[in-house]
């Protein structure tokens, strides 16, 4: 038998006998046989599979971290060794949703602490314990805003990640929610005139980036003051930046969502990362996703359980706040371990170093005659005109071991020859100078 299947021939026979049948075939009395063998190879031994997979992995170029200047939602930060070591504990990895709270306190407490950390970072009152990614977190935020406000128009700054906007549209269209985009200014922040002109009675919420896709930090205070009180402010944020930027919760955000990959998760070719989702206490019963709460056991000992499960599908079915069941809990744990390792000061240092590195790169590019597209204040990403045939150059230097700023024109045709540059604490002066040699 196979090494993952423990049955011996003897046992199979004993079991068939207990069931009262004579063959495996009889187990399938109710099931038509429509296939006897797949057009797959037969199973291979571990050694051979390992060799094959290493071969495949080797076809992917692994850039040395300091030579990565690509961000756009997925960031290369240094991940302390303890993060991987602890998150790989198989008692976390091979557990499922904590349906039996008494034997899932590890999961539950870790997620409870994760929620707390996300509330602290965003300045919000409640967090759920994870969405799939930033894009779906935003889509769910919009759906929730509509559940709260019961109006069906949502404004969204065009400077949000195109994939986030598109995902939101995919989620919103069947609900007849109208998504309207708001233009940006020359400095990359939201255009207030356009914004004002689009707000109407039917507007449920405004979505802005903080920082936005172009790295520019929106003035949330001014935005909050500009839009009517009833219009909910949904902020898409990048969590590392929140170590230096004022918490959106302090500036009037109603929902803060975003991608949490930057907090200790490897890039994974884009997934899994994690969507974080925080909001105000008053909306908690309208919130999608899993929420963990503190309680006591019969002996008065503190413990943790899933709360407000009546919002969820297994109870509420078609009336659930969302269809999320499996989420990204292991990634929430990873975030929590990372944030425990960095603490407020470490995270601030990461943010500060990322900021400095990006500004150094921008300064040097400008010195070389490359122009930045937006002149607003940016965090660790910025868009610049990279010159003719940048795409080809980019592929060239990638083969050479440097993952340069991402060409934007394939995604955003208006940004011809433009690139989105990103720096973090792992980019050294030397690696930036090395990148610059290609410009």
């Amino acid at each position, binding site marked *: 038998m196979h090494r993952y299947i*423990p049955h011996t021939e003897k046992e199979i026979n004993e079991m068939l006998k207990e069931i009262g049948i004579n063959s495996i075939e009889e187990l399938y009395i109710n099931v038509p046989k429509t296939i006897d063998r797949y057009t797959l190879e037969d199973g291979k031994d571990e050694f051979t599979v390992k060799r094959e997979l290493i071969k495949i992995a080797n076809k992917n170029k692994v850039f040395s971290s300091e030579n990565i200047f690509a961000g756009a939602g997925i960031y290369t930060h240094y991940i302390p060794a303890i993060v991987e070591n*602890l998150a790989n504990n198989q008692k976390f990895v091979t557990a499922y949703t904590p349906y039996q709270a008494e034997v899932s306190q590890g999961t539950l407490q870790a997620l409870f602490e994760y929620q707390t950390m996300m509330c602290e970072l965003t300045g919000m*009152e409640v*967090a759920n314990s994870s969405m799939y990614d930033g894009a779906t977190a935003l889509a769910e935020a919009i759906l929730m805003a509509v559940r709260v406000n019961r109006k069906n128009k949502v404004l969204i700054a065009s400077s949000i990640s195109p994939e986030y906007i598109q995902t939101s549209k995919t989620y919103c269209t069947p609900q007849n929610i109208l998504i309207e985009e708001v233009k940006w200014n020359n400095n990359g922040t939201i255009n207030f005139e356009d914004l004002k002109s689009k707000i109407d009675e039917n507007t449920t919420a405004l979505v802005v980036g903080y920082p936005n896709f172009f790295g520019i930090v929106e003035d949330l205070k001014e935005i909050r003051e500009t839009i009517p009180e009833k219009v909910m402010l949904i902020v898409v944020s990048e969590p590392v930046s929140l170590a230096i930027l004022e918490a959106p919760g302090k500036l009037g955000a109603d929902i803060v969502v975003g991608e949490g990959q930057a907090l200790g998760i490897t890039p994974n070719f884009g997934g899994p990362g994690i969507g974080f989702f925080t909001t105000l206490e008053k909306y908690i019963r309208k919130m999608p996703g899993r929420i963990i709460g503190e309680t006591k056991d019969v002996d008065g000992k503190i413990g943790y359980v899933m709360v407000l499960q009546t919002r969820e599908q297994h109870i509420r079915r078609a009336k659930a706040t969302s269809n999320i069941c499996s989420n990204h809990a292991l990634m929430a744990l990873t975030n929590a371990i990372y944030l*425990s390792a960095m603490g407020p000061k470490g995270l601030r240092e990461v943010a500060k170093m990322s900021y*400095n590195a990006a500004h150094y790169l921008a300064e040097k590019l400008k010195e070389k005659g490359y122009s930045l597209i937006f002149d607003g204040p940016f965090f660790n990403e910025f868009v610049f005109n990279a010159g003719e045939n940048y795409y080809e150059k980019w592929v060239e230097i990638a083969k050479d071991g440097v993952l340069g700023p991402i060409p934007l024109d394939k995604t955003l045709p208006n940004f011809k020859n433009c690139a989105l540059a990103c720096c973090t604490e792992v980019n*050294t002066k030397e690696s930036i100078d090395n990148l610059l040699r290609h410009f």
Partner: protein
Amino acid sequence: MTIFELSKEGRKAYNLPKNNIKDYGFDFPNHLMRGKEPRLPQVSELDIVRHYTNLAAKNYAVDVGFYPLGSCTMKYNPKINEKLASLEGFTMIHPCQPREVTQGALQLMYELKEMLCEISGMDDMTLIPSAGAHGELTGMLIARAYHLSRGDTKRKKAIVPDSAHGTNPASAMMAGFEVVELKSGKDGRIDLEELEKHLDDEVAVLLLTNPNTLGLFEKDIIKIAETVHKHGALLYYDGANLNAILGRTRPGDMGFDIVHLNLHKTFSTPHGMGGPGSGPVGVKKHLAKFLPIPEIIKESDVYKFNYNKSESIGFIRSFYGNFSVLVRAYVYIKTMGNDGLKKVGQMAVLNANYLRKKVSKIMDIAYPDMCMHEFVATCEKLTKETGVKALDIAKRLLDYGIHAPTMYFPLIVHEDFMIEPTETESKDTLDEFTKILEKIFIEAKENPELVKNAPYTTPVRRLDEASASRKPIVKYNFEEE
């Protein structure tokens, strides 16, 4: 103790590299500069190591013992999958790297798609959905797009059996459908006549799980498919229970138009306390154009993403799905192969029926037919007799070191357990489980309070869930507040 209580101002667990770059100050307006520091923990590396090590010790997991959680397919998660998924060539690649330097990742995804098409009997597939429910939503959006593309705008209804997973109606609703519930027949299966009654030109799709959540195979599936198609609707397959039919039949062969798979169930990627999972969606040829963006294609030996799909339902998340999960599933399929997958199906069904037979001597089986990968048993009689409920028995099982089965689901059975042993459990384990269950039933009869007050030996005892939801405390209460 929470990690926040371990925190001490000035303690640290980090040490960052020097980048030799000058300080640029900040050019944000003052009111956008952070005022109060987030109260993240300030702890040493050892504090963190002990905290999470001791938390993990409080978890039950597949690696600890038997986890017969029905409908969740808690099978063994092979360590080689973890090992290979952690290769830097898979974890440390950025999604925006040029395709010239990510051909391995693209090849793996392309091949996985092909293999999953073969296993499910579908013509095309997307690997993007991040969970089963995400796959369901994707599937429902495809159904919606399909009907609209034909100018058929009145198909607003989705039919969902009363035994279905809760995510089925929730996903249908999210895709804009009105959900119509279909009552199960007396034998726990779809009643064809009842179904016919619900089918009309407003029905867009019927969602089925086959075998269904009772572990019963829908024998009439071919007829069901014909009927549904006859009425112009689509047939959707919830792949949660695919493990049962591996090597025997395929959703595509049964007539399903759309199917989602749960890689974290059938294909042994770990459940991670709730995720990340992966819920690829396969479709028949006529629906391929609606699959989400991007699709992965192969052109003269080069693997590429194609974003140019005018009739696609669009983006359903960022990037390409949960790639690391895909790697694990790929390794699993390579390891099991055609022969291994067939054995998986067979042994999963053998285990379930063996356990059904053994459990039937202790409590009633809800629908005592030959089952597939799982079955539903009810302790209603015991409850009436002793007041001991399914929940109590579940908690008592924890005392004996076994994870409780799914309870109180499907909703059409009362005081029930949905028990799925999976193929990776041995006869010894099943026998042990039966023995313990038997013991608990004796306890319940002789000393019901003993069982009602269980568990006793767990890290915490029975928790007050009701008041936790009434007044939710969902974050740590910092003393200074």
